[in-house]
């Protein structure tokens, strides 16, 4: 179990691109999601039931999350967010720039980023999780 992950997480979307070869980056959203998994460990457990979250993250990091699986992930996370007492405080970078006081919480923002990346990557793409030291 990931008791604490203090990391600046970079999410990238990749999709097969005939011109540039498989795995070309088509978009790169640098979202600063400090502590998200640690802060919402309980929420993640609710969303994923008996799944070992650390194993899931390791797999995600190594193999990427297939973009066609993202909608299911996101639906589970949103359901968990609906029932969670606390959604976490989104960092300033993740807020609506026009109305920074409207803090929507970390999980909704995270879901939005995942959704966006999956949309960019198409059915055969993947959303991968990169830690800054990998860059």
């Amino acid at each position, binding site marked *: 179990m990931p008791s604490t992950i203090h990391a600046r997480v970079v999410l990238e979307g990749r*999709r097969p691109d005939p011109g540039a070869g498989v795995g070309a980056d*088509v*978009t*790169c*959203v*640098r*979202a*600063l999601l400090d502590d998200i998994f640690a802060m919402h460990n309980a929420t993640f457990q*609710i969303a994923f039931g008996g799944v070992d979250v650390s194993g899931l993250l390791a797999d995600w990091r190594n193999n990427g999350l297939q973009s066609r699986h993202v909608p299911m992930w996101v*639906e589970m996370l*949103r*359901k968990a*967010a*609906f*029932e*969670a*007492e*606390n*959604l*976490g*405080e*989104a960092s300033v*970078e*993740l*807020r*609506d*720039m026009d*109305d920074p*006081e*409207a*803090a*929507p*919480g*970390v*999980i*909704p*923002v995270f*879901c*939005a*980023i995942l*959704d*966006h990346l999956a*949309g*960019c*990557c*198409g*059915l055969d*793409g993947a959303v991968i999780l990169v830690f800054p030291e990998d860059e």
Partner: protein
Amino acid sequence: MKALPLKDWPDFLLDWAEPNRTIMAQSPQRRELSIFGELPAADGKLSQFFVGRARDEFGTVVHLKPAQDPPVLGLGLLQDATRKTKEEEILRQWNRWWAKIAVRSGYLSPAVDPVAFARLNELRQCDSRVDFIVDTNVVIGGVGHWLVRCFGDLCDLVRTVVTDLEIQRFGDNAKWSPSKIAELDTRANYLAASRFLEYLQAQHPVWRRLDIEEETALFVASASRGGGKEPGADTLLLRAVRRSLQDQVPGLVRLFVTSDQKLARAASHDLPPGSTIAAYVNPISEQGTYLCSVHWWPQKGRDCGAAFVSSLADFTYEATCLCDAVRLVKADGSFLRVSSYLAGRNQFPVDWREPNVWVEVGNQGPIAPQVVGPVAESAVQSQPESSSGRIVIAPKTPTTESRAWPFDLESPLVSSPKRCIARVSAPTLLDVLSAIMLASRESLSISERVFPESPSTARELKFFLRVVDALDGTSHPGPSAVALQAMFANDDTDSLSRLLTKASEYHELISELSSRRSSTIDKLNIPKRSAGALAGLARLLGQAVLDGGELVYGGAYVSRDDFVQWFMGTVQADPKGPLGGTLLADISRKALLELSVSPTRLEKALRAAMEGSPLAELEFLAGGTPEHVLEEEVAVLNSKGWTRRKVSADGLLGYRSVRRR
């Protein structure tokens, strides 16, 4: 009734939900609101139906799960052989409307192919200036809203006369008190399209017209036809778009955006490659969906992205395109009713360019989630005449009197059953009973089309119906048909089950179950031929539950006082759940085993006992971890017929646990 400028509406909603609110510095607190819509029923009166729940007043997460049987859909009136297909079509249209509302309000993104999506991303990241030439579906379905939300500072919108003509036609054909889905669709199309043309929240985009040289042909064709799009309109539209794309100047990108699959296909070979964006709004699932208010889009100079936040206020306003009014209800029953027009009041151009919403604040007492059906007669008051000249009835705050106790049958059995070994399918039986109930109301005979096509199956079903006196010797409603009206109107499945015990085999099943409490189906003294179907009927009517392969009796009588005493004792005895509460999943199982009350009947009992009894002192909580639970599909009767719904012992009335305050 208070008029509010639309720009003030979000703050009003937040103040109503939490008067002592401070500027948020952290995650919004969970404070669930139920969302109900109001639409006219067949008799013209407004009927309230469940739309979904919001996690908090900001609408951070919304569980959108619109009722699948509001009266305006007229599902109960479909009786012919094509009923299933029609029903699916209507529900698809209904669920697509809710997806459109979600897209318009920023809770859902349209489905866009990845190549087009990547192209839009690139344009956004390099801050290109863009003209979106849109078709009518884009204006209505929310794709236009989505584009403006993401490209608001860069784009202009272009429409053609084809769109203008279509919108005018929606307006001409719109009925302001719709009585069926087609009328509702036309009205909503007109309102949704007009609102997008009149009022954009983003300041930058302007609307421009793309002239079609052959416009006269469209007007001539329009004058000679009653409705629908003019022949060749799409061809002329694409021709004009092609010319416009050829004319684009350096530094400006023009794209044609459509939500119409056929038009997108035609555009793919009529227009230059890469200039068509096909963005579809697909219906939400019948099981509902969870939606977040945040959307993400790349933006130059902002660390490659930005969050766009929508709100419950936006969702509510957009929902008034479809509904006459929308109600937001707190757990204590206080509500905020919102509509976008006031019956009897003239509207002027300023009302459309700077819209108002009309709000009413009240208290309707604690609510039961997913209550579907007409607003009670006593709970309505007349309003001034609407613009269409009809009297519009708006709900008044209902009284908070205790609900009637749902159990009044001391015995679930009639005393003298008649011999009947007919095998009947439970859903077909309820379909035909609905038709009999409706026919008896209008003094009509029963159409042969309501019976199964197979002659032998139809014969068995008619035999069963004659045994229980629902059908007379011919094709007319029998002596029990009048009682059926009350049973359906009151969702009284106990009485219906008792009526059906006039048939000997069903009588035997209920009798044996009530004495043994539980049994496997094959051990019951019933012919195997009909045992499964009759057990299914008992389950559908909430008289039994299948648990671990055993049929457990759930139709026992319990008095209100006994129930309240038992419930309070159970909550007190087992406060080991989350936060010192008791899980309703555990209470449901105890109710089934100790009281022989099935989860659906327990739900009815809870709803009736929550007011004016010691249960009012308990706190019912919605959150918590899902438990392994009993789940049964049960019939819900209403004055138009019946529907099914799943009752989970883990989520009775939307609650998951209960504790002392």
